[in-house]
């Protein structure tokens, strides 16, 4: 059975995921998104992977959420508080969500995953470092290039054309 920490974390994560999409103000929405990302970091801690949890907090809660907050602040004030959605599609979307949840949930509950438990010790974070530097080293270098390229691309994209000459 699940313990209290798991229940609290799932309420925080799923509740703030709904709040991030449904709150009227985009600023409160992005703060609720921080709650979701932090809740997932808590799940990583429950899964005995503190390294991934700290990486999640540093990258998602620390940088991505702040980046989103700054972008929201660049947008006009009326747009932050305006709800832009199709009322017709809302109920269809809720129906799609429920159908998806029930169907995939039934498939998973019916599969053999229910009986999976483990008594083995968790993976040590030294093994992750070994993985990165032995088997996955080409992927690590590729990832570094992708990150550098995407940051350069983001800077070039967001540059103002009218200030180049000045």
């Amino acid at each position, binding site marked *: 059975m*699940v313990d209290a920490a*798991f229940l609290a974390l*799932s309420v925080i*994560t799923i509740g703030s*995921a709904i709040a*991030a*999409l449904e709150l009227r103000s985009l600023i409160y*929405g*992005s703060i609720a*998104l921080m709650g*979701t990302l932090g809740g*997932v970091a808590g*799940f*990583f801690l429950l*899964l005995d*992977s503190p*390294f*991934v949890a700290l*990486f*999640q907090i540093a*990258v*998602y809660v620390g940088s*991505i959420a702040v*980046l*989103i907050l700054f972008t929201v602040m*660049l*947008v006009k004030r009326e*747009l932050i508080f305006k709800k*832009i959605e*199709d009322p017709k*599609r809302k109920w*269809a979307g*809720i129906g799609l*969500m*429920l159908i*998806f949840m029930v169907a*995939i949930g039934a498939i*998973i509950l019916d599969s053999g*995953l229910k009986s*999976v438990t*483990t008594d*083995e*010790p*968790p*993976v040590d*974070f030294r*093994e*992750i470092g*070994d*993985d*990165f530097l032995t088997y996955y080293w080409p*992927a690590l270098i590729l*990832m570094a290039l992708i*990150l550098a390229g*995407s*940051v350069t*691309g*983001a800077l070039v*994209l*967001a540059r103002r054309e009218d200030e180049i000459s000045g």
Partner: protein
Amino acid sequence: MGNELIDFVIVSVALLAIGIYGLSVKRNAIRMLFAIEIIINAANLNLVAFGRFIPHSGGQTLALFSIAIAAAEVAVGLSLIIVAYRMYKNIDIADFRSLKG
């Protein structure tokens, strides 16, 4: 360890369904980015959960790669939103239609 694999997978399915709802209903570009983030987090949760219960270090390694790539994706996505906002003075994706034939 009191929690079982199925619990984490159920939470992940719930997050994925919420993300799909957001992607299909919202027309606000920033909200759609929120929904994409929620879906990516559901995938990461699955990776780490399966990696814990097998147990194998590959799950955590792939989750770390996924987090880093998601950071790159958000940087490019947000700058695209800023460029589109500058051009159309709006973040409603129904207004971004100059590529429509």
